[in-house]
């Protein structure tokens, strides 16, 4: 009776091990089979070694390291998005620092079993889209395939180059409480998780390297080398140096982090559907330098979304015409379109006979017992035993989970479920419920037993499949919850294969690695270019607005000031100018402005923290944040830390109970420092290629427009000398120009000189001239599609702005009449008009997103 006296048994094994109080909860829970103990109640040797080290670290240290782990993951931006949850975007990834250990012996049988299964599924896939012998010979019922949403008739007859059609394969494996291994799910269309597995391993080795002491843990790198090889092998036309891209649905996809992580790790460009275009039966990547041919697409988009022309007509995630290119043999997909037909629990009962048929072998890894209701006897069995089964549909539905635990249904629900099955029996499968074995996990500082599901990853490599020596383990936070899935939360674990030998060695194919030296210079996808451009613009917009807002707040908050008409007039002018400057109209420029002037803080707080306030700081920050995530592989780890800091700063700023102005100014101080840090970090970490240029072009354009707007909203109206003085001072403060001014002119503020500093001074990094000169250089260096000598539209515009600035008569600009500084206003408005036209022109030339694709269907 293990459950009654495990402690004593355990202690006889290793008296020190349990001395550590973090184990106190582990054996309180009844268990029959555990990963930790063998049948005789002895700690398995690899766990013993592991926990010897683990307990040496001590409870405090372990918990500290655990916090380190979570912080590192958060800072590295490791996230997981949950659909349908308003707070589900960019949820931090959770890693439990006790790994899942697999002994060498156990792994050997898993590895051969998985490899056999991959071979088998590959043969089934080839057959379904080829001869369909399995159906013709009655081994596989037609209804099981033809009714499956993943059976894509347009893909019939397509065969990609390479040894295997199934390039990537993933299996979820559970261990029963009797120690038996079961394959619970097959993932065959776009298996996710390998990037998270790699990130988990990287984090473990960084945060708790001591745990590896005394244990030889196999490396993950052979899998990723095999992945590179496998993708190279399917390149069309025997291209030895294929261009491989990762196709993602976009930044709100649940595993977007992984897409960008794999893109950086493997060096494959990350693209979305609208980055690609089909022309002449080939797929092309739209880049800054024009169209670049794509050979292999590693897709993370579900297959029916990949081609709106032939599959799902209203898909915005795909590439119209893609299947034509695949059919012509000009591009290969991993996995091929249509491979989701294998994600079919109804296949499980047929795998054994198919294995006999194709391989003349028995299945090495058993599948979970399943009954496909398309057959009368099986239907009968499922209906009679529904309470003890899990009911699944043969394909996953778009809306939520497709598994129902029969035991969880009430009487009437049970009847409804049975009725559903009877109506369409071929769509349902009953599956045995397996008691999953428990493995030690660290949850909230306690070691407790948790149910775990192990996801393995295989890739086609020459004649064989290579399995990752490790994998992604998910543990259920709720011990009673049978269905473990990432969507419903839970923890992840690293998986360690304990083995004295290094296991299979996979080298990156020689000829490929040599030719990799050739780099793609013009590879920046237009989509990335566009987002970098917007990151640049929002960076400056936030900075400009935050600085001006801070200046306004400081003026308002200044104590001990005489309430004079001058001050009151300055306040009003500043507030009105701020509203116009930040485009947060109506605000202090609207009809109700008088009410707002009475208590300006309320409105200012709204502009700062209300994320729905268009033009407000939080609103702009969210836009900035969105663009950042679209190009998340461009930011360094340090940059991520700064971004995370800004997020938290703005988040924590909101619940302030008293709207104390000091907190708001403090929040702005932090934001300004972070944005400046962000700019500085980019300057030293982003390579000076097109990515940088677009980012900086965005910044310079925004800075130009902001400085013009700043002058137009503050300095073109005529006020009393004292008010004008106050406004000039505020403008300089908001542009970090006060010190420069005093240093350069050594005299009191004057309109003429303020304008000179902010418009014409070529050495002031915030002056308009400074921006325009740099913009001119950038724009001249952008790749040109027309090799001709004529100026492009954007070059013409920037030249015009530059010339206007050079030819300006400064004295004329400082002349005022009753209407104010009319010359200055005309001059500024002309410049604004010219410069604000540049983004549209650049977008048309490089981003090419102004055209949206549209579906026409006629009847």
């Amino acid at each position, binding site marked *: 009776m293990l459950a009654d006296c495990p402690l004593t048994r355990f202690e006889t094994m290793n008296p020190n091990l349990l001395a550590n109080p973090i184990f106190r909860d582990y054996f309180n829970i009844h268990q029959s089979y555990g990963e930790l103990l063998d049948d005789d109640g002895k700690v398995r040797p690899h766990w013993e070694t592991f926990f010897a080290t683990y307990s040496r670290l001590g409870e405090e240290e372990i918990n500290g390291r655990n916090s380190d782990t979570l912080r590192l993951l958060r800072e590295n931006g490791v996230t997981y998005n949950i659909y349908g949850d308003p707070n589900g975007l960019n949820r931090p990834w959770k890693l439990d620092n006790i790994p899942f250990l697999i002994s060498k012996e156990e792994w050997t049988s898993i590895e051969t079993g998985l490899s056999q299964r991959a071979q088998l599924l590959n043969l089934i896939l080839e057959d379904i889209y080829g001869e369909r012998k399995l159906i013709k010979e009655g081994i596989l019922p*037609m209804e099981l395939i033809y*009714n499956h949403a993943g059976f894509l008739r*347009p893909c019939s007859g397509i065969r990609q180059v390479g040894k295997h059609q199934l390039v990537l394969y993933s299996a979820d494996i559970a261990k029963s409480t009797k120690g038996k291994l079961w394959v619970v799910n097959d993932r065959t269309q776009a298996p996710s998780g390998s990037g998270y597995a790699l990130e988990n391993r990287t984090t473990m080795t960084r945060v708790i390297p001591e745990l590896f002491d005394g244990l030889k843990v196999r490396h993950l790198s052979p899998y990723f080398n095999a992945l590179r090889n496998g993708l190279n092998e399917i390149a069309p036309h025997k291209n030895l140096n294929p261009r491989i891209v990762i196709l993602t649905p976009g930044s709100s996809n649940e595993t977007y982090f992984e897409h960008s992580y794999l893109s950086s790790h493997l060096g494959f460009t990350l693209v979305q559907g609208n980055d690609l275009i089909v*022309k002449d039966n080939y797929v092309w990547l739209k880049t800054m330098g024009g169209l670049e041919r794509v050979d292999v697409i590693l897709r993370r988009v579900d297959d029916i979304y990949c081609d709106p*022309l032939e599959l799902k007509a209203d898909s915005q995630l795909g590439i119209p015409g893609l299947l*034509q290119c695949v059919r012509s043999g000009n591009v290969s997909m991993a996995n091929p379109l249509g491979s989701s037909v294998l994600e079919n629990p109804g296949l499980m009962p047929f795998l054994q006979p198919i294995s006999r048929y194709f391989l003349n072998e028995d299945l090495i890894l058993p599948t979970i017992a399943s009954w496909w209701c398309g057959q009368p006897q099986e239907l009968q069995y499922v209906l009679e035993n529904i309470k003890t089964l899990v009911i699944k549909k043969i394909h996953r539905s778009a809306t939520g989970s497709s598994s129902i635990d029969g035991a969880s249904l009430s009487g009437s629900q049970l009847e409804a479920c049975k009725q559903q099955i009877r109506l369409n029996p071929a769509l349902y499968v009953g599956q045995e419920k397996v008691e999953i074995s428990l493995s030690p996990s660290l949850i909230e500082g306690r070691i407790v037993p948790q149910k775990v599901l192990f996801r393995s990853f295989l890739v086609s490599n020459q004649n064989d499949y290579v399995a990752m020596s490790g994998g992604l383990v998910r543990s259920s936070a709720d011990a009673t919850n049978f269905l473990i899935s990432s969507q419903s939360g839970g923890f992840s674990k690293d998986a360690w294969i304990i083995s004295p030998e290094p296991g299979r060695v996979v080298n990156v194919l020689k000829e490929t690695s040599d030719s990799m030296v050739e780099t793609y210079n013009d590879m920046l996808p237009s989509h990335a270019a566009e987002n970098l451009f917007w990151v640049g613009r929002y960076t400056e917009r936030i900075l400009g607005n935050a600085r001006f807002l801070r200046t306004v707040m400081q003026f308002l908050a200044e104590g001990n000031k005489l309430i004079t008409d001058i001050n009151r007039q300055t306040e009003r002018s500043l507030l009105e100018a701020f509203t116009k400057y930040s485009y947060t109209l109506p605000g202090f420029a609207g009809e109700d402005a008088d009410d707002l002037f009475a208590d300006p803080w309320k409105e200012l707080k709204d502009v700062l923290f209300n994320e729905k306030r268009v033009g407000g700081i939080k609103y702009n920050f969210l836009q900035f944040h969105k663009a950042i995530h679209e190009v998340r592989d461009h930011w360094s780890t340090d940059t991520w830390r700064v971004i995370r800091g800004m997020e938290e700063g703005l988040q924590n700023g909101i619940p302030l109970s008293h709207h104390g102005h000091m907190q708001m100014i403090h929040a702005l101080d932090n934001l300004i420092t972070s944005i400046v840090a962000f700019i500085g970090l980019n300057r030293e970490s982003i390579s000076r290629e097109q990515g940088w240029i677009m980012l900086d072009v965005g910044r310079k354009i925004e800075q130009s427009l902001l400085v013009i707007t700043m002058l137009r909203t503050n300095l073109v109206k005529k006020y009393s000398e004292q008010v004008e003085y106050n406004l000039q001072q505020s403008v300089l403060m908001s542009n970090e120009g006060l010190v420069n001014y005093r240093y350069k002119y050594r005299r009191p503020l004057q309109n003429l000189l303020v304008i000179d500093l902010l418009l014409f001074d070529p050495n002031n990094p915030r002056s308009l001239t400074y921006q325009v000169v740099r913009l001119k250089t950038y724009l001249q260096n952008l790749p040109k599609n027309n090799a001709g000598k004529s100026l492009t539209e954007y070059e013409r515009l920037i030249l015009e702005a530059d010339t206007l600035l050079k030819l300006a008569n400064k004295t004329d600009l400082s002349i005022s009449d009753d209407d104010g500084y009319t010359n200055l206003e005309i001059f500024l408005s002309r410049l604004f008009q010219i410069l604000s036209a540049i983004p549209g022109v650049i977008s048309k030339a490089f981003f090419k997103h102004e055209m*949206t*694709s*549209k579906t*026409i269907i006629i009847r």
Partner: protein
Amino acid sequence: MKYTIHHKTTYTYQDPVSLCHNIARLVPRNSSGQICKNTSIRIEPKPDRINEYEDFFGNKVIYFSIEKEHWELTVNVTSEVERHHTGQIKMDVYRNASLEEIKMEIQNLKAESMDIRQYIFETPMTASNDEILEFAMRSFKPGKSVFEATEDLTKRIYNEFEYKPGHTTISTPLAQVMKERKGVCQDFAHLAISCLRSLGLPARYVSGYIETVSPKGVEKLIGTDASHAWFSLYIPDMGWTDFDPTNNCIVSDQHITIGWGRDYADIAPLGGIILSSGSHELTVSVEVKRTS
């Protein structure tokens, strides 16, 4: 009987189109009693790419793309088709088989008869409901042969539904057509197919044309101004028989088949994706002339 078919489709765009991908299923396939002698296709502007192949159902597919800016697209198809209808349908025992007998025979079809059994499954466009099933049952009364019942179903759709172009679109759910009792040939074909499939019978959707210029003394058919659609039912040993619920008839020499599938989506005559921001206008004209 010989026919010449002219089918012209024109898209006029409000804004220029920089790229378009299209799929046309406009080339008549050979089938029992029909030989397509010749088809010529003229596309303006000239496509940069044309791929021709057969789809899963054996229909002829033409993919084309135009990769330069254009404001208008015209697809002109001219086909010469010989129709040798085998005359009246074989009068044999199977014509009199009941629903139960036929279902049993279909159950016993060999595993390799996928070509037939694939047309039993419901598709989104032919989704059944209680009302549709009840509508079907009124024709499939006990003791009635499947053939007669299907003729009756065809007739009832003709009598009880109003042919009303423009009332439905391609995305109108079948349940709504059933409820409102109005539609066009596609809707009527889908309805009949849904009825037959809900009873477990294999039925397919046929796309084609009907004679537009009727010889003297022959009544002009409905659905002549564009491509037409009807349905086909499989009866073991008898094969596929086509019924046209829009014209309340069993299909004979006045119908020319382009191809078939499970529903409209499998055999849509022309569809595509354009890169453009504006709207478009569409005109279609069809002429089917007897040449001998």
